[in-house]
């Protein structure tokens, strides 16, 4: 085994621990690619984190900004990165040099959980597992463009691309949305043939009067004309639409394509934040307490684990919710607390004492980690009992006091709010409705409003960036304070009108 290469970045002591921890993890049934650990000091780890985990990423000031903030957070003691894991084969994991040996063990166990999740969770199945190489490749290409075309020009185009990199269709890797035309199909428009009613030959003239048929043909023809408003169906993958239809130079198209690819690579991590962290925390806790910890480390471990699981009022800690949900599922399936009989049982006493001794828990959580994402996970497994035990609540903004206040502890509200936040990994649904609006080649986007308005300052700035890419005027249909509005930008000024 190439153990030396993978452990090259570790001290002998840590390398040995890595070996043992991975072996234990595999004993429990975790399944992951080999993990390549590296030890970094704090500004190196901040650097790698600023690059989203990829030290070879293309140059851009945004990484510099993220770096500044991470560094400031560290220097002021506000935050500290313990661990950084990259979804790749082999999996890369960065450890902070200054952590204690107990911390390192905890982090390595945690990393095993993430690595298993990356490899086995369905939503990651379409991600590029050689992303480390791909990112380096992107870096090289973008550097080359920057040298040929000019750093400023390339940089400001990247600004535009990054500002729309959430306009992708996260389900599209799994669905074939568009029919690929057959090879031998000719492109010639066909004259549409209206459906006829069945009739005897001699009656046909009366059952299907020629004038009627003519009328139908005309209508169908019109419908086809209308469809020339492309795309045929609203396109949520706005980046793809622009790739295919915006008048871009080759280098621009290439960069837009690369940034889109990276957006698709990162999306599943945002889609499974709660599950992924929950799963990794579940396993670090199990591995630490059952295998790894020495007596002397127990207190420190408890302290750090509690720190990671800590909650603050305005924030939902995904580590905490995730691990508790996995534990809850395990217990429910161990005891058989699921299915029709359980749902219909109203007797509180019986519910408390319920134990069918099925022992299906472990199997169930492995299944859950394979096929669910956060939305499905919360939808299916967040129960009323759980929400009550975890003291969950919803909060809302109060204009009077300029504060967020606790709004409700109703289970329905909590669940729907949470699902609402997780849907489309927290991003608004925005689709291209028409790429030839009013037959003037203008871009028409529609925001599917689900109760929350857009941040308008940002929206206007994004329109500006979209216009730069599209080069013709761009429009966004949205709802502002319950009124349907159209925001526009034509390259010179912003417009806004009621619809």
């Amino acid at each position: 085994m190439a153990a030396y290469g993978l452990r090259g970045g570790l001290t002998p002591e840590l390398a040995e621990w890595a070996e043992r921890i991975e072996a234990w993890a595999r004993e429990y049934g975790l399944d992951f690619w080999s993990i390549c650990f590296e030890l970094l000091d704090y500004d190196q780890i901040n650097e790698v984190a600023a690059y989203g985990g990829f030290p070879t990423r293309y140059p851009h000031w945004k990484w510099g900004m993220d770096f500044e903030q991470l560094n400031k957070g560290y220097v002021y003691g506000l935050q500290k990165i313990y661990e950084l894991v990259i979804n790749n084969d082999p999996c890369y994991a960065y450890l902070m040099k200054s952590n204690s040996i107990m911390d390192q063990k905890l982090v390595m166990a945690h990393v095993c959980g993430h690595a298993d999740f990356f490899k086995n969770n369905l939503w990651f199945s379409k991600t590029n597992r050689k992303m480390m190489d791909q990112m380096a490749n992107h870096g090289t290409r973008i550097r080359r463009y920057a040298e040929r075309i000019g750093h400023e020009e390339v940089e400001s185009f990247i600004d535009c691309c990054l500002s729309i990199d959430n306009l992708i269709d996260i389900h599209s890797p799994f669905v074939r949305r568009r029919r690929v035309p057959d090879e031998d199909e000719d492109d010639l428009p066909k004259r549409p043939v209206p459906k006829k009613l069945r009739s005897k030959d001699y009656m046909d003239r009366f059952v299907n009067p020629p004038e009627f048929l003519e009328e139908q043909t005309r209508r169908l023809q019109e419908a086809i004309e209308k469809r020339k408003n492309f795309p045929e169906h609203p396109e949520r993958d706005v980046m793809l639409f622009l790739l295919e239809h915006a008048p871009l130079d080759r280098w621009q198209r290439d960069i837009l394509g690369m940034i889109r690819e990276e957006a698709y690579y990162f999306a599943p991590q945002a889609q499974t934040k709660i599950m992924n962290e929950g799963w990794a925390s579940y396993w670090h806790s199990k591995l630490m307490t059952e295998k790894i910890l020495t007596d002397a480390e127990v207190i420190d471990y408890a302290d750090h684990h509690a720190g990671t699981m800590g909650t603050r009022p305005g924030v939902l800690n995904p580590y905490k919710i995730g691990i508790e949900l996995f534990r809850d599922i395990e217990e429910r399936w161990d005891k058989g607390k699921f299915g029709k009989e359980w749902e219909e049982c109203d007797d509180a006493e019986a519910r408390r004492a319920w134990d069918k001794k099925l022992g299906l828990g472990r199997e169930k959580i492995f299944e859950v980690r394979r096929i669910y994402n956060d939305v499905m996970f919360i939808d299916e497994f967040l129960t009323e009992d759980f929400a009550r035990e975890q003291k969950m609540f919803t909060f809302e903004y109060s204009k009077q006091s300029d504060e967020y206040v606790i709004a409700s502890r109703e289970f329905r509200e909590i669940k729907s709010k949470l699902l609402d936040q997780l849907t489309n990994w927290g991003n608004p649904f925005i689709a291209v409705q028409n790429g030839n609006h009013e037959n003037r080649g203008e871009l028409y986007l529609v925001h599917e409003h689900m109760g929350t308005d857009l941040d308008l300052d940002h929206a206007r700035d994004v329109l500006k960036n979209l216009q730069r890419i599209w080069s013709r005027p761009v429009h966004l249909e949205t709802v502002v304070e319950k009124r349907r509005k159209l925001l526009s930008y034509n390259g010179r000024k912003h417009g806004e009108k009621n619809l």
Partner: protein
Amino acid sequence: MATNKIGRDHSRFKQIVRGKIKKELRKYITKGELIGRKGKNTVSIPLPQIQLPRFRFGSQQRGGVGQGDGEIGQPIGKGDQQGSGPGEAGDRPGEHVLEVDVELEELAKILGEELELPRIEPRGKKAIASEKDVYTGIHRVGPESLRHFKRTFKAALLRQLSLGEYDPEHPLVLPIREDKRYRSWKTHREPEANAVIIYMMDVSGSMGFEQKEIVRIESFWIDTWLRSQYKNIESRYIVHDATAKEVDQHTFFHIRESGGTKISSAYELCNRLINEEFPPDEWNIYPFHFSDGDNWGGDDTRRCIRLLEEEILPRVNVFCYGQVKSAYGSGQFIKDLRASYDDDERIILSSIGSRDEIYDSIKDFLGKGR
């Protein structure tokens, strides 16, 4: 692993920040919002407009889900702090309003570039000297701690070679006393320019909150600029109504007196300060006086002009008078000064009608490079 690739992205980011600050400088000056954000050597500047825009939800309507104890209606946080917690530090940093720390020196540079301020040519350079040791040469005697290993080794090798004692088979080089070489230093006396800013302000009843705020903002920027020009700088503060006294910075900006105004009292105190503590051949002296232009009467104004003419002007780099418009002041004083010193470049007059004019007023004061 190869690191510090981030250095380039980081400095590019700083460059962008610099550009943004420069573009928004007038706004920062007018609003005076930077003053409260000053640390020891840096100012923390909020820059929300630097973040990449995205289609995203407005946060206020949104609310969210939390965890913990509390009754319905109990507040859990101020308007802006909702967002990233320990759990959300993952692949994307939280959406805070970005604050960037900028060094005061950098800020002064930006100010200088944007306002096209000339560098100041200090006066009285010769008098003050600071001592500085520089290693300049090699000596044959000296303390062991300063022994120059390479030179010593070379000298020993040279000696052994020339005496035929060097054996390439056994390359043993042993320095003896004569071979030893030591670093030596020279003490340089470097002239250093010192400066003092003497702020004077009228705090009589007619100077309201807004007038003082303008003075506060303006003196912040003057301070920032002059500090970047002199290594060694002191600030002194004098307030006056009918009498003058020296106060500390906090008092200077917060004191409120009432009663009449005798500007000469401040000028006398200023003069005394210069005489007693800041001999002009050692110090660059910058008196700044702010008032709303009301004075006790023509006699006192004449007295002021005499003080300026005979005592103050000959000793200072430049005397600056800023007149802040107030609802009560007559604004007479600047006219009287203008009548006496219209083309005199030892005195700079600037009238500040409102916050919007601070920017130009700073330019008036500092644009002469004196």
